[in-house]
Structures are given as structure tokens and as C-alpha cells.
């Protein structure tokens, strides 16, 4: 494939119709909250986009993020977008191996210095660099080296964005997210475990169209995809508002599709596009399948209380703590009360009878 091929050529070569392409552009535009009038501009920009070089680094991860993007039931435009980027390095997908693979990375870096995109999935162990190495290079070193010449870094998945599962208490590998190690490059966090495929491709499309990174929220996530909570866009929200809740996964409420808040749904604190973009070509999303949101696109979601514990609940064993406190309070109260009582009785014991001459101060009488 010649390096200068545009996306339009590539799509054409893969049998994607003009109509299908525009549909994709429309969806992207709406996801990115662009007005419909922008669709032709998006299409034009995408058609003309040159193939940028992408270096994909996989660290402490499960390959779920790559799976999410590539393992669709049928080939999609989202997956095809990879055909138009020059994916010069990706463990799982590249044919080369060993020293050849590393040489490809170095070559891509040299040829596109300052222009390539560095995509990372997985967290980086800094507790002991030996926990995860590639070709004898510690993840942290490889990330620093690769990020140095990158135009931007895209942290795909909650591990790369926030540390994810490896970062969960007690974090045995000393895992850190990308943002801990890379501080001088723009970083886009595409969180989720895994992220929604169209969100990944959307960020890449944004880079292709606008040549930069999208507007980010306080957690470094593209605001267009992570601007609203699952709860706000959830189709079960009316049940929450009416106070209709499923109490167990097989009760009448669950069967009627009532709100899963009381079963631990983390929708109210989770910012992601699941409820609108959905999964599996827009088929469904976890809540629609009958399970509460586990908050996978939020930092530390593994440690954010039990998945089945309602969000409003304290995480400690409060009842027991309160019982001990009550006992301690009773004991201390009895002791202090006994002390006051003794003082009072002591005062009463030395009460001095008052006579009529004691009603005025000595100097007055």
C-alpha cells in the first residue's frame, strides 16, 4: 500500500460505498457534537486525510482494548479506519517479530519524528521494571523513548488512562497510567474496560480531520464522548425518577426493566457513551442486558466499593462500628455523668444554710 494513499482511496479499495462512508461521517459528527452542516466538511477532510504513522504500545494489558476494536462480528468502518493509518508497530497485529519488530518501531519513529501518534494500552509497572519488558526493554523506558517523538499520546483503555486493574489495591507491580510518565505531550485518555470501539476510532478520526486532539474533560478524556453520565442518558432513568427499583436480578422489578441503582449500578458516577453509542454495532449495553454499570471508564473503579453495593452506601462496616461507638459512648457517658453527679452531690453535701442575713452582700448590710 503506497504511503500517500488517502482514506477515500482505501475505503473504495475495500468496497465501502460513498453512502456508507457518509453515514459513518454523520455518526462521527453527531458523536463529536458537530452540527449536521459539518458533515460534508468532515467527509472532505477524512477523504483527503493522509495516512499518519501510528505506533501502538501494549504494556500491562489484556488485549481487550485491541479486541474491542478489531473483533467485531463483521468488518466495520471503524475497524477499517486502521487500514488507512500506517500501523507501524503493534504486537498483536504486526507480522514482524523479534528484532525486526523493534527495528520497525525505530524506523517509523525516525521517519515520522514529531508527527506520529503513540497509542498505549495497558499500565506501566514502575515498582519493578522487570515485571513487564518487551525485547528486554522495560515498559517505562519504551514509553518514554516512543513518546518523545510523538505528536500526541492516546491512552486507550482504563489501564493506560488511569492504571486500571493492575493499579487496583494493593497494586503489586507499582503500576502507573501513562500520564504519570509522559508529561510533556498532549495525552488523550480513552478510558473504559474496554473503550467503546467508535470512541477509539472517533479520536483517531478527530486527529485525522483536525490534526490535533479534541477538547478534554478534567480526567483528560474527550468531552464529546465522556461529557455525560450513563445515568443521564440511560433508558431506565424514568424508573429511577419514579422510585421503581429492581431489588434482585430475578425479581419482578428486574423483569420489568426497572432501575438497577439499588443493585449497585454505577451509572450516576460514570461518564461514558455506552448508553448512546452502545456496543456490538449498537445492539445493547450492560444495563440493557440487565446488569448495572460497573463504572469501568472511571478511575479506580475496581476499588470503588462493591459492584453490587449501591453508590450511596458507605464502604465500611458501619453498623458494627456504630455499635462499638454506642457502647463506648454509653460507658463514657455513664462515667462522665457519674462524675457530674458526684460533684453535684458533693456541693449539696457542703450546702450551707442560708439565713436572712445572707441575702445581701456583707458590705451592703
Amino acid at each position: 500500500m503506497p504511503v500517500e494513499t488517502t482514506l477515500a482511496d482505501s475505503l473504495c479499495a475495500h468496497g465501502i460505498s460513498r453512502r456508507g462512508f457518509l453515514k459513518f461521517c454523520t455518526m462521527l459528527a453527531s458523536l463529536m457534537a458537530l452540527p449536521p452542516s459539518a458533515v460534508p466538511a468532515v467527509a472532505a477532510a477524512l477523504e483527503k486525510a493522509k495516512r499518519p504513522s501510528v505506533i501502538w504500545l501494549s504494556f500491562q494489558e489484556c488485549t481487550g482494548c485491541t479486541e474491542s476494536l478489531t473483533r467485531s462480528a463483521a468488518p466495520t468502518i471503524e475497524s477499517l479506519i486502521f487500514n488507512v493509518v500506517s500501523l507501524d508497530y503493534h504486537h498483536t497485529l504486526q507480522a514482524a517479530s523479534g528484532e525486526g519488530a523493534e527495528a520497525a518501531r525505530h524506523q517509523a519513529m525516525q521517519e515520522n519524528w514529531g508527527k506520529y501518534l503513540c497509542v498505549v494500552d495497558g499500565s506501566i509497572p514502575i515498582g519493578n521494571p522487570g515485571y513487564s519488558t518487551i525485547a528486554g526493554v522495560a515498559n517505562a523506558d519504551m514509553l518514554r523513548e516512543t513518546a518523545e517523538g510523538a505528536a500526541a499520546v492516546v491512552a486507550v483503555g482504563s489501564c493506560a488512562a488511569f492504571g486500571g486493574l493492575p493499579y487496583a489495591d494493593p497494586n503489586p507491580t507499582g503500576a502507573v497510567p501513562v500520564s504519570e510518565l509522559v508529561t510533556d505531550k498532549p495525552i488523550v485518555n480513552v478510558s473504559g474496560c474496554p473503550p467503546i470501539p467508535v470512541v477509539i476510532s472517533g479520536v483517531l478520526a478527530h486527529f485525522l480531520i483536525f490534526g490535533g486532539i479534541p477538547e478534554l474533560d478534567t480526567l483528560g478524556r474527550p468531552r464529546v464522548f465522556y461529557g455525560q453520565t450513563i445515568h443521564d442518558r440511560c433508558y431506565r432513568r424514568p424508573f429511577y425518577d419514579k422510585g421503581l427499583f429492581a431489588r434482585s436480578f430475578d425479581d419482578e422489578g428486574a423483569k420489568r426493566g426497572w432501575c438497577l441503582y439499588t443493585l449497585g449500578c454505577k451509572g450516576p458516577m460514570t461518564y461514558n457513551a455506552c448508553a448512546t453509542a452502545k456496543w456490538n454495532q449498537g445492539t445493547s449495553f450492560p444495563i440493557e442486558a440487565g446488569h448495572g454499570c460497573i463504572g469501568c471508564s472511571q478511575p479506580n473503579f475496581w476499588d470503588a466499593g462493591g459492584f453490587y453495593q449501591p453508590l450511596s452506601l458507605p464502604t465500611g462496616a458501619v453498623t458494627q462500628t456504630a455499635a462499638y461507638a454506642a457502647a463506648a459512648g454509653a460507658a463514657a457517658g455513664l462515667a462522665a455523668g457519674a462524675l457530674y453527679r458526684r460533684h453535684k452531690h458533693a456541693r449539696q453535701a457542703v450546702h450551707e444554710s442560708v439565713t436572712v442575713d445572707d441575702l445581701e452582700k456583707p458590705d451592703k448590710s
Partner: protein
Amino acid sequence: MNTQALTDTAPGTAAVAPRGASLERGRHAFLEEIDAPIASFFSSCVRCGLCAHACLFYTETEDPRYTPIHKLEPLRRMWRQEYTFWGKLAKRVGLAKPVTDDELAAWSELVYDSCTLCGRCSRVCPVGNDIVYMVRRMREGMAAAGHAPAGLVRATRNAILNGSPMGVKLVTLEAQIRHVEKETGLTVPLDQVGAEYLAIFSSMEIVNYPEYIAALTRIFEQAGVTWTISSEAFEATNAGIQIGQSDLAAELLSRIVKAAEKLKVKTVISPECGHAYLALRWEGPNLLKRAYPFQVKHILELLDELRAAGKLRLRDSEDSRLTFHDPCQLVRQGGVVQEPRTLLKLVASDIVEMNETGVMNWCCGGGGGVSAIERAENLRLKAFRRKKTQLDELGVEMLVTACANCRVVLEEGVDAYNMELPMVGLTELLAEHLEERP
């Protein structure tokens, strides 16, 4: 009576504090008085200010200082600093504002002049604070600290040393008895051992309203019950309760109790006087630390019993428009609400009720010792406007009450505001309507 023993300073007792009133003795008294109810009241107050609107000293002056709960501020701080953990801690590290003599001096007006112990505030407090219970106890400390008003100190001295706050002596009573006997043609029994009832009086009844003695004589004659007056204890009022000095109150009460025991009466009749009833009926056994071997009844309770037993036979009826002024202590400390109304209906046809009456009545403005405080006179007359408003709304021709102190205060108020309103005691009114002897 042996007043010498009381006024003499017993040697050796000055170890705790020097003789005479002092801040230390006052603080000591506060701490002796604070109990679980007071602690619960202070813990509950949210400064809603509703008690202000239950107090005639506030409603008639609109001065927020007269808000009942505010009158207890020094007592509250004593409680906080001595009987709560954080208060004690704050005191130890010097963060608590101590209760000073100057402060108590400033509070004298609030605790005495502007509180008649009427107890209305205790009935409106939404968190249930019994504010009057606290004011009564706060006076213990105020008196011990030497901040009781001069008028009350004088009345108390008089009561202890001379047997009556107004200086009424036995000879005065004897003169009034002779007068009553001549008027009624009946014998007034004196020191009769074994009589059923012992009657005691407020000095004001002896001096200003001897008609009350005559009324009792005639009613008891008709009812055919035996009764007596004691030459040793005829004074019912208790300046010790008003000034807030339990030791002196106990001494005054013990005189009545001794006389009643000596005459072996079954019942002591509290006269038409509110605080005498409070003192004798409710505080007495607690101050003397023993239950009485006799009963205590307010005269209205007794009259209603006689009526129910058919021993009170009345005739004719007043047709003038009249109303009944409830003495505070009688309704809010004794629950005697229905009895006077039942009795009044027997002798009056046109009875109207004030807009707030019974347990929610308004005080005359002179109870709780206020009428004995000279410096409080202007304030008391201002507060009387509350009663005046109530009376003006009704346009009555006569006011009936059952408390000699209320009656004196009301008469002064009526005079001061140039109102035309004759007053009568209920017992007296009933006696006027007794059936003729056959």
C-alpha cells in the same frame, strides 16, 4: 417563734464561704440546683424565640432582653462549664466566659422584675423546655449571690423575723376575727385541735380583704364542716419561694406544717393566693424532705367538693357581665381550671371568657414576687397592658379572681389606666349567694 436561732451565725459553718451573699455562694447554689431536666432543656433550645411571645414582659415592651430563655443565660453557662465535657474543657483552657458578679447584677432585673413565674413560656416551648422551672431554680443562685431585689429581701426578712412579709402580726388577725364575728354573728374558731380543716391566709387577705375570712366562716357554717385558724401559723404566703431561697422557704413552710400537725387537721386549705398554693402544695414536701401527714387543697378545690357533696347551697344570680381571671399558679401548677367555672356558673348568668384563658391565661403582671419589687413598678404597669387588652375586648362589668395578690395588682393596674372595673374574690362572691339559714 424562735427567729433568733435562724438569724444567728452558727460558729464554724463559715468554712466554705464567708457569711453573707457572695458570687461563690451563688455559683454553688446554681450547681446544686442543675439537674437532668435542666440539662435536657438547655441541650434542646434552638433559639427559636417563641417563648418571647408567651411572655407579657416581652409582648408589652418588645424588648428582646425579656425573652424567657435569655433570662437563664448565666445558668446555662454554669451548666455548660460544669456539667458538660466540652464546656469543662473550654473552661479549663480559658475559652469559656465565666459567670461574673456584674453579670448576675445585670440579670437581676431579668430574673426577678420581669418574671412572675407565671409559667406560660413553659407551655409554648416547642422543644418542651420547662423554662419557669429553671427560673425558679436560677433564683436560688441569684439570692445566694446577693442579687435579689431589695423589696423581696425586705419581704423575706419580714416573713422570717416577723411572721409575715407585710408585717401582719397576730393582734391584727385577732382584730379582724373579732370584726368578722361581729359582722357574721358566727364564731371564728382559733386553735381548735381536731378540726377537719386548717385555714391559712395571705397577709393581703387579712389586711385588705377580710371579707375572705368572713366568707369562709359562713360557707363552713352552712356546710357544717369543722375548721380552725392557727394562732401560730396563719400566714400562707412564702417569700422564700419568690426570692428563691429554699432554706428560708422551708422555714416558713415548716411553721404551717408544725401548726397543722399540732392541731391534728386532716386538710390544710391554701387560700386565694397562687404562689402560696405552689409553695404549700408542691414545693413544701420536697423542701422539708418528707410527705405531709395531711392533705393540701386550694380553697376552690374544696368549695367544688362541697358543691358536689351538696353542702354548698346557693341562691340568686349576678346578672352583670363578668369574667374570671385565672391565677397562673392555680391553672398551670394545679390544673384547677374547671372548678372555678363550675362554681361561678352557680351564681352568675353572664360569664364570658378571655381570649386566652385556663392553662393559657395571661398573668396579672405581679406574681412571683414582682409586686413586692418597688423598682419594677413601671415595668409591671406596662406589662399590665396585656391584661387590659384582654379585658377591654370583653367589656365586662365585673372581674372575678381567686388570688389576693392578683387582685391587688389588677386593682392597681385598673386604677393606673383609669378603667372602671370592680373586682371580687370567688369565695367571697359565693358567700354572698349562700342560701339563708332556715
